[in-house]
């Protein structure tokens, strides 16, 4: 077996705002940008790590999603209870300071968690929670 985790997917609401967050606040590179309007699929990822990407995609784009389900997803995104991702950094506190300096929405300052890690959290423009934890 030779399977890698190639891309994770997070929903966006405003594609340009999400792209700007991952590019300008987190320092990711934009690897591809497909589609128009709200139907855009934007691939971003950390420089120097071409084998790992994050795909910013329109939520509930599958035609099998009902209108009611689409509304629920949109509501959960707005509430901040839908998408989330876990990232990591060698220097958590330095990373936190840099990201905060871009006026990103801070959800949690660097904190020692009772389950043994130290992490912080930001909110992306689509309402996704972006946790960043200290690498051991």
């Amino acid at each position, binding site marked *: 077996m030779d399977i890698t985790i190639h891309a994770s997917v997070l929903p966006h609401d405003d594609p340009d705002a999400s792209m700007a967050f991952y590019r300008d606040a987190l320092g990711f590179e934009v690897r591809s940008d497909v589609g128009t309007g709200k139907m855009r699929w934007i691939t971003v990822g950390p420089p120097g790590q071409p084998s790992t990407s994050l795909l910013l995609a329109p939520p509930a784009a599958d035609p099998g999603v009902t209108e009611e389900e689409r509304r629920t997803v949109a*509501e959960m995104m*707005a509430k901040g209870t839908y998408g989330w991702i876990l990232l990591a950094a060698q220097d958590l506190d330095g990373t936190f300071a840099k990201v905060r300096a871009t006026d990103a929405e801070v*959800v949690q300052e660097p904190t*020692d*968690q*009772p*389950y043994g890690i130290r992490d912080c959290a930001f*909110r992306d423009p689509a309402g996704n929670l972006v*946790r960043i*934890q200290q690498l051991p």
Partner: protein
Amino acid sequence: MCQPALMRALVFAQRLKDLAVLRRVRDRIDREYAAPLDVEALARGVNMAAAQLSRQFRLAFGTSPHTYLTARRVERAMTILHRTDRTDLGVDEVRGMVGWTTPETFGTRFAEVVGVAPDACGGEAGRHGTATAAAGPVQTAAVAGDAAAAPAAASPTAPSSVAGQRTTPVRNKEAPAGEPQLA
């Protein structure tokens, strides 16, 4: 002829904006729980009346902002009290560190959420006694009630059974807006 559809779209767009405001209130609790924050201040921050915020917050998240703030503070207090490298800290110092301004209510509320008094959490007796068996890391995670903070997702060493669980204070489960005890 498309007026009703347009109206529905506008109403829904407003609903999403309102929910995003509530999200920012909840995020502010997570970010500033250690500050002297209360529901009045949270409401002022988004130009709402405290009662209105409490009602809408509960409709959106299933818990009042006061209950959410209380749970966050107790969770952090318990984490600090369990830290073996900070046994120098007394209960009252920890209370202050998590933004709890009324000493007389801290022990009661802590016990309601955790199941044991705060002074039973630290030290040898607390760490190894039967009383804290129910207030260990598992309970800590449950108190957080925050799926994003669920240890199963954040740490491979944490038990997966607690992910997404929520524990609310017993007595204050239906905390009315503007309850006097806004710690």
